[in-house]
């Protein structure tokens, strides 16, 4: 993990934004250090794009406590004067300019000498490995290439913060994975602060130093990617991070960060507490990933049930099991024994089961 001891490159405090009567952001705060890769994760309508537009200056917030980019107060400063640039979701490349002209745009606007403009723009294109296509028209580029041009255009002016609005959303799976690596590589090389917006928990997990999960214009949970992935603190977070099973129950015993839950139906199982403030007797939820559940012997902790369905999906097998605590989804990544044998009891490691308060609406 990187060490962020310098002053924050981006500081946003208490942003409130409304579209008419609809509140898009309510008191959202965030900050990012120099060289940090911060991801804002959320589904559509969570306010993540609005947040990005507030930072870039393309949207004027209803109210904001503090907004600083690169140490400068930018409240009321127009987008053009802020030291941050955006990689737009649809790339927003200028169709009437060549690749090189697109990349050079920000430099030309700043009235730099023509030689410097071309040299800097070519260097940026080299960085994204497109120097051969400098004179092409935008229309002649593939989606991934357009993506890289947009990236080069945004970083060529050396902004303090680079904002990326779901930049990989329009690319196919393979390309997306390649671009993820390329983006991380580029970010490390430039040592630039990236604020990355996505709805994909997988992207957030692989790329970021820190993740902010947003929901309905509020921050639902924030932390390092693994924290969010392994210790979701709410039902929404667990659901969003891809936990297939969320079982309701009651906390009946706790010891350190380990707890025992009595699930609906009476089965008592072990798990790990996501938060410290849970007390014995609280209503809780237990989240379990389908692939972390496996058949166990009769003495091990777990749940009894009967297999209802089994779907072979090539790489893995999805199973649905009826238990006293409700239906349970299982995923097996290896053929045997789950695929051919029948079993009546499943279990999990207690570190794989997350327990959090059942206070969600």
């Amino acid at each position, binding site marked *: 993990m990187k060490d962020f001891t310098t002053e924050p490159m981006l500081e946003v405090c208490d942003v409130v934004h409304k579209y008419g009567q609809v509140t898009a952001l309510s008191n959202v705060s965030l900050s990012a250090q120099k060289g940090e890769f911060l991801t804002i994760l959320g589904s559509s309508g969570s306010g993540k794009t609005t947040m990005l537009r507030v930072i*870039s200056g393309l949207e004027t917030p209803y109210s904001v406590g503090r907004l600083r980019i690169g140490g400068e107060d930018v409240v009321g400063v127009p*987008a053009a004067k802020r030291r941050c*640039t955006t990689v737009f979701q649809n790339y927003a490349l200028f169709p009437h300019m060549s690749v090189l*002209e697109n990349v050079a*745009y920000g430099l030309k*606007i700043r009235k730099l000498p023509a030689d410097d*403009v*071309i040299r800097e723009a070519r260097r940026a294109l080299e960085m994204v490995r497109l120097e051969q296509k400098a004179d092409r028209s935008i229309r002649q580029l593939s989606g991934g290439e357009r993506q890289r041009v947009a990236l080069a*255009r945004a970083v060529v*002016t050396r902004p303090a913060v680079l904002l990326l609005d779901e930049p990989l959303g329009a690319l196919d799976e393979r390309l997306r994975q390649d671009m993820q690596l390329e983006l991380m590589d580029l970010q490390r090389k430039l040592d630039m602060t990236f604020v990355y917006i996505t709805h994909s928990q997988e992207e957030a997990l692989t790329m970021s130093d820190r993740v902010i999960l947003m929901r309905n214009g509020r921050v639902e949970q924030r932390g390092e990617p693994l924290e969010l992935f392994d210790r979701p603190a709410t039902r929404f977070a667990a659901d969003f991070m891809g936990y297939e099973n969320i079982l309701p129950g009651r906390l009946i015993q706790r010891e350190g960060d380990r707890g025992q839950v009595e699930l609906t139906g009476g089965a008592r199982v072990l798990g790990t507490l996501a938060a410290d403030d849970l007390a014995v007797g609280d209503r809780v939820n237990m989240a379990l990933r389908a692939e972390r559940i496996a058949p166990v012997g009769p003495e091990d902790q777990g749940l009894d049930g009967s297999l209802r369905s089994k779907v072979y999906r090539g790489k893995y097998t999805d199973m649905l099991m009826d238990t006293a605590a409700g239906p349970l989804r299982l995923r097996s990544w290896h053929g045997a024994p789950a695929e051919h044998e029948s079993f009546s009891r499943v279990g999990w490691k207690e570190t794989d089961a997350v327990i959090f308060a059942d206070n969600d609406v």
Partner: protein
Amino acid sequence: MTMNAEIGSPANARQENRMERPSFRLPLASLAFWGISLAWFIIVIIPLIILFVYSFFTTQYFQTVYSPSLETWTSLFSSGRFEVTLRTLRIALTVTMIELLVGFPFALWLAKGNVSKLGRAIFLALLTIPFFLDLSSRTIVWRAILGQNGLVNTILISTGLTEGPVDWLLYSEFSVHFGMIPALFPPMVLPIYMAINLIDDTLIEASSDLGGSPAQTFSRVILPLSLPGVMAGFVFTLGPALAAWVEPGMLGGGFVNLLSNSIESAYTALRYPVVAALSAFVIGLLLLLLGMMMLVLRRFGGSGLTLR
């Protein structure tokens, strides 16, 4: 070939169909293309050719003499037609430039300004209203407003702003310009509005995000991307302005003769070859102006955008 396949086994037919589809659609499209081209040729191009051919005939005693000669063309610019041509050009270009100067900002505001959906719909409807009413009925109303005893002069005199009636308001070049401007405003605004409307808002946002001031965003992004609309607006405005006939006739009062008035008088005198030659000349003039405009735009567009 396709018929045979369809009669054959169903599976075979389906396969054939799928493979044939692209090449089957193409003939239809090209059929339509050639059909429309042929119709266009018959309806528009052939009359133009006949017109052009007519200009090489002459008239004697109100009869057209069908023997080829250059007489009509050589005598075309005698009897002060050169001044008429210059005046026509000057007025048509002035009107077009005024339309462009007023129409472009209006179109920009309508397409990208802070206009509500309802407001935009109302303005677009207002722009189409002139097409509902005959041009001469719209134009003749101005006589009552601009005349010596008209509305404007009555107000001016009764408020004591002027002592006598202002006489250049009607039957002058002013009134001809004035009459043409509202008539030719929609054909200039609508194509520009369409072109600007097509510009993706994120391009404008991207420009200011990259540091572009509103003026830079306008000159480097909005203007170049709206040029096709400007070009179309130019064509739709300059053409009718060169051929304007109602406004100079009704508001010029015989003092402002344009080429169209020459065509009309030649027509009434049954001198069809002159009509043909003058019409061909106006078309040539229009093509020449558009060609120049195209060159200017390409130059301007090119130098404004490239790094070189």
